C-alpha cells in the first residue's frame, strides 16, 4: 500500500514534468500511429501471399500485434524508464539519494520514472486486440480471460526481471545503456508468433531474451493454443527470474557500496 502511494507520488512528479514538454505528446502519437501502420501494412502484404503464418490465422496474428503493442507500451511506460535512470544514477552518483531513503531501494528505483505518453501505445494495443477478437468471433470465456491476464502478468514480471538484471550490470561496468537498446530491437521480433522462427531462434527468443513470454504466450491464451505446461512454466519462470533479479540487485548494491571488495 505504501509503495502504491510512492508510485502515485512519482507519477505526479512525472506527469508534471511531461506537461512542460507538450510537444512530446504529439511526437509520441505520431510515432505510435506510424509504428502501428507499418506493422499492419506489413501484415496485410504478407497475408496476400499466405493464409497462415507459423500456424496462425490473420486475425490471430492481429491479436498478437495488439498484445505486442500493449506489452511494448507497458515496458516503455514504466519498466524501461526507471532502469535507464538507474543506469544514469549509478554513473552520476545520484543513486545515493535513493539509497538513503527509508524504503526499499529496488522499489523506488523501479517506480521512479513513468513515460506517461506511452499510455497511447497501450491504448492502441488494446484497441487492436479487441478489434481482432471481435473479428475472430471467438467467445472469450472467463477461464481464457483469466489465463490471458495471468500470462500477461507473468510476461510483465519476466520482462521486468530481465531488464533489472541487465541494468544492474551497470554496478560492474558503468556504461551499459546500449544493452537496453539491444533489447528494444530484439523485442521487435515479438510481433510475429515465435513458431514462425527456426528452432534455435525460437529457443533464443523464449529463454535467452524472453520475448516469447511477453507476446506470443499471452496471445496463445486468447487463441486457445495455450497448454497447461506452458502456463505453469511461464508462472514458474516469472517467479524464478524475479528472485534471480533480486539477487543481482543485492549483489550489485554490495559492489556499489564496496562491501564485496
Amino acid at each position, binding site marked *: 500500500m*505504501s509503495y502504491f*502511494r*510512492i508510485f*502515485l*507520488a*512519482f507519477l*505526479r*512528479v512525472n506527469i*508534471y*514534468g511531461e506537461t*512542460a*514538454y507538450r510537444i512530446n505528446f504529439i511526437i509520441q502519437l505520431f510515432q505510435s500511429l506510424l509504428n502501428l501502420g507499418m506493422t499492419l501494412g506489413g501484415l496485410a502484404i504478407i497475408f496476400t501471399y499466405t493464409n497462415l503464418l507459423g500456424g496462425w490465422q490473420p486475425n490471430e496474428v492481429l491479436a498478437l500485434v495488439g498484445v505486442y503493442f500493449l506489452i511494448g507500451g507497458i515496458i516503455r511506460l514504466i519498466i524501461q524508464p526507471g532502469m535507464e535512470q538507474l543506469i544514469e544514477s549509478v554513473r*552520476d*552518483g*545520484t543513486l*545515493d*539519494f535513493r*539509497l*538513503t*531513503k*527509508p*524504503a526499499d531501494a529496488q522499489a*523506488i528505483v523501479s517506480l521512479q520514472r513513468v513515460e506517461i505518453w506511452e499510455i497511447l501505445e497501450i491504448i492502441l494495443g488494446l484497441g487492436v486486440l479487441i478489434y481482432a477478437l471481435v473479428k475472430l468471433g471467438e467467445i472469450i470465456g472467463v477461464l481464457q480471460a483469466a489465463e490471458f491476464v495471468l500470462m500477461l502478468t507473468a510476461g510483465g514480471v519476466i520482462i521486468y526481471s530481465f531488464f533489472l538484471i541487465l541494468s544492474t550490470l551497470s554496478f560492474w561496468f558503468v556504461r551499459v545503456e546500449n544493452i537496453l537498446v539491444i533489447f528494444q530491437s530484439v523485442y521487435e521480433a515479438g510481433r510475429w508468433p515465435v513458431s514462425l522462427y527456426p528452432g534455435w531462434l525460437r529457443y533464443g527468443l523464449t529463454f535467452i531474451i524472453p520475448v516469447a513470454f511477453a507476446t506470443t504466450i499471452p496471445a496463445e491464451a486468447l487463441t486457445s493454443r495455450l497448454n497447461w505446461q506452458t502456463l505453469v512454466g511461464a508462472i514458474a519462470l516469472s517467479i524464478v527470474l524475479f528472485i534471480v533479479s533480486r539477487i543481482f540487485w543485492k549483489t550489485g548494491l*554490495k559492489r556499489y*557500496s*564496496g*562491501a564485496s*571488495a
Partner: protein
Amino acid sequence: MSKEKHNPMAYAIHVRDLSKFYVVSQQETGTKAAFQNLVHRRKTEVRAVDGISFDIEPGEIVGFLGPNGAGKTTTLKMLSGLLHPTSGELSVLGYVPSKREAVFLRQITLVMGQRNQLVWDIPAELTFELNQVIYRIPRDSYRSMVTELTELLDLGSLLKKPVRNLSLGERMKCEIAAALLHRPGVVFLDEPTIGLDVTMQQRIRTFIAEYNQRSGATVLLTSHYMADVAALCKRVLVIHHGKLLFDGELSGLLQQFTSHKTIIIQLDNCKANLSNYGEVKSYEDGRYTLRVPKAETARVTERLLAELPVIDLLVEEPPIEEVIARVFAQEEK
C-alpha cells in the same frame, strides 16, 4: 571497556579505527595500453580512510576539514550507510549505518553540494511531497515543517518554480529544505556552500546554526571554505591522506599548528632596520609587518615599544587558511 567514561551508544556518532580501502584499476593512456587495459588492468589499493577514530555528542556541530581527496566524503558516505567500511567500528545513533535499516535512515539526512535530489523540470514542492510520502511524514508535521523552513530559508515563491529556473543558491536552499522535511536528528552536509556567492554562503551558514539550535540535531559538515567552519563549528576534525591529524577546538588548532605570530607596527615617520627583531614580511608607508616566533612575541613587542617611536602596534594570529595549508604541506614532506 567498562572503564570508559562514555558508553558508545550515548554518542550521536561513534567511530573507531575506521578504514576504507579501494582497489582501483589504473588506466594508462595510449592505444596499445588501451587494448592492454581491456584484457588486464593493473590494480592498486587506495587508502581513502585509514584508521580514524572520533566521537560526536548529540547536538554538536562539527566541521570536517581536509583538501580534496583527503577522505571527507568517503567518511560521510560510510556514516550515512552508502559505503561499507573495510574495517573498524561505526555507529550512528546506535545503528550500524551499512545495514541501512529504515529506522536509521528515517533519522539521518545527507546533503551533497555537488549533486541534486530535486527533479530538474518540476517545482521543488513536488519533490517535497514525494519525500513526504517516502518518509511517511504525517500531514500536519509536514505542513508545519514546510512553513518553518520557508520562513528560515526565505523560500517564498521558490518552491513553486521549476527547479531549472532557480539560481544555484536558490536551488541549494531548496535542496537543504528537501533534506530536512523529516526532521532528521543527524545531518551530514558535504560541501553545502560550494560555488555559492558570499551572501548566500552566509545565509546557509546562519540557517544551519539556527536549525541546530532549534532541533538539537547533530551536524557534521565538510567544507572547502574556512569561513563556514569558523562561523559554525567550535570543534573541527582535520583529515589528510585518510588520517585524522587534529580533533579539537578551532582555537586549539591554531595553537597547535602555528609557530609564528604576525606583528604589525606603524612607526612615526621614520625608516628603521627591523630585521634584528624578526622577519620583515612587508613595508608600506611606515607600516611594517613582522613575523616572529610565537614564544618570543612578548619580548619582541616589549623591545619594539621601548626602542622605536611606535604609533600603533597589532599582534595577529596568522589567517586560518594559512595555518591549515601549512599543516597539509608539512604532511606532504
